[in-house]
């Protein structure tokens, strides 16, 4: 009998039988959530299905984060419906200002070995906790909330073995952009993107989260990372020490394919507009002539306290480029509070940035920084499709918080290694 991958281990424990890639299972769900763009449809579908209840209200959550606070009355009406449904069913409500669903879920609810189903594709970020976390549509999540279970095909696993330490001026965002550039946006379709190696063991949790977050950008079903001492530290720091459990794949687990990356050779990267796999070096000469009108530091990808901290450190004592708007949106109230307490927000305001309340803000194009026609944005978010930030005539470049900081200083995409 061969060993098991992280996805196979979790789904085996959950279903009470030994499963392998390709099996179809009905699995109990440990945590299910919706956000304000998908939740209204979820709840209407639950009403139609006759299951307008939560199987476990204490593990079913409504997040109001995408239009937070609501910029239009139609969205405010959706929020009213979400609050009423939460009150009626006893589901947990995280209202405007609490932060992006995946970030808040990670801080408070996701546990190692959990099966997490969210009505948002970046639910995969929960994988950094050593969980099986995947995004589904509204109706599937309605079933997960109402019946406490879901059906799944146990995914094949692609193994990403990372050696070495990421150099100065480079972040895990650059590693995941490198991977997506290599395997393309459908390179992991239906598969689990499992991370391992000493480069991951030595990586702090906030950086691991960026890797898992963008598994979906390669089509991945989930992006699990072993739960280890760093996971234990993170949970303890969030007053959740008792929730820690280790998990790692078996040495003889079967992988559909294995990839190796040497983190010490990485450089800062940028995804140019249209697709996350349009990956070029930050030093690519074609970037030099692109004026950046907006820098966005935020999103579940890179809106954590540590991202704000590294950005603030790089821009310390500088003034932002004259023609560049700098918008900072902490991913959660926790990140916001920590940045406040550390004096970072004051420093960023002095730099010339503006600070939004926690949430998704500019990333999905609803509000909070929609670019104008012909404008270019350098964002720390995860997607740069045409129209993604709310205007199909604007152009979105993706990069790390360090690249965002260097770019905010000079107004063109700038190598952060020249600033650090």
């Amino acid at each position: 009998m061969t060993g098991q991958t992280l996805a196979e281990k979790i789904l085996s424990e959950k279903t009470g039988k030994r499963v392998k890639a390709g099996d179809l299972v009905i699995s109990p769900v440990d945590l299910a959530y919706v956000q304000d763009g998908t939740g209204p449809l979820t709840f209407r579908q639950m009403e139609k299905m006759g299951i307008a209840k939560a199987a476990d209200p204490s593990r079913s959550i409504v997040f109001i984060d995408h239009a937070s606070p609501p910029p239009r009355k139609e969205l405010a009406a959706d929020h009213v419906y979400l609050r009423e449904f939460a009150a009626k069913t006893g589901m947990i409500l995280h209202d405007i200002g609490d932060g992006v669903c995946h970030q808040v879920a990670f801080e408070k609810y996701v546990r190692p070995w959990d099966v997490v189903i969210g009505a948002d594709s970046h639910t995969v970020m929960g994988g950094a906790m050593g969980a099986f976390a995947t995004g589904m549509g509204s109706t599937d999540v309605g079933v997960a909330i109402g019946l406490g279970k879901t059906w799944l095909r146990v995914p094949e696993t692609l193994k990403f073995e990372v050696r070495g330490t990421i150099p100065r001026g480079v972040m895990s965002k650059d590693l995941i952009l490198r991977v997506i550039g290599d395997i393309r946006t459908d390179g992991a379709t239906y598969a689990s993107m499992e991370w391992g190696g000493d480069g991951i063991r030595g990586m702090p949790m906030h950086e691991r989260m960026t890797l898992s977050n963008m598994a979906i950008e390669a089509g991945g079903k989930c992006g699990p990372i072993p739960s280890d001492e760093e996971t234990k530290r993170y949970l303890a720091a969030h007053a959740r020490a008792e929730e820690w459990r280790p998990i790692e794949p078996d040495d003889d687990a079967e992988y559909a394919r294995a990839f190796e990356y040497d983190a010490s050779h990485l450089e800062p990267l940028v995804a140019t507009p249209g697709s996350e796999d349009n990956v070029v070096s930050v030093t690519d000469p074609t970037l030099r002539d692109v004026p950046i009108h907006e820098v966005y530091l935020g999103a579940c990808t890179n809106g954590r306290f540590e991202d704000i901290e590294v950005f603030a450190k790089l821009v310390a004592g500088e003034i932002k480029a004259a023609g560049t708007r700098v918008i900072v949106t902490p991913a959660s109230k926790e990140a916001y509070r920590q940045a406040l307490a550390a004096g970072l927000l004051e420093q960023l305001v002095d730099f010339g940035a503006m600070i939004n309340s926690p949430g998704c803000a500019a990333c999905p194009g609803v509000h909070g920084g929609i670019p104008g026609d012909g404008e270019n944005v350098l964002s720390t978010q995860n997607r740069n499709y045409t129209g993604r930030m709310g205007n199909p005539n604007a152009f979105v470049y993706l990069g790390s918080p360090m690249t965002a900081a260097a770019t905010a200083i000079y107004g063109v995409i700038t190598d952060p290694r020249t600033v650090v």
Partner: protein
Amino acid sequence: MGRAWKFGDNISTDLISAGRYYHLRSNLPELAKHTLEDARADFAPNVKTGDFVVGGRNFGKGSSREHAPIVIKMCGTRAVLAKSFARIFYRNCINNGLPAIVCDTDEIDEGDELEVDFGKGIVENRTKGVQLPFAPLPPAMEAIMREGGLVEFIRKHGDLLVTEQ
């Protein structure tokens, strides 16, 4: 029979149902007027009931928004054909009773007249006189599709009843 509306590779859910229409998500008939607008603005105003959306690789990549297949279906689309689909979009299609067919769409050009025989698993391109085979749905999805979608499935059965392999 219906005509083919041809799209390229990597059609994202943002291209299908853009974020700037977020406020219309609880008003699906209005949202549907903007279906695929950023990929082809001529699609939504001109698509006829029974037409086909034909993509290349990785159709529906990106977000989990179920509104994407819902508005494609509301436009009257008979089926979505592509060389491959993104995972969440594919599942959302089946959950809404919208056939998502994997076949060689290189054999289909804009405006070709198509017919689908689900029993035989064949897309017939009548304009070109070629037949494009496709594999049947996995049993778990076939059961949901047969009821017309996941809502109807749960209403009828009251539970998930996926046949485990």
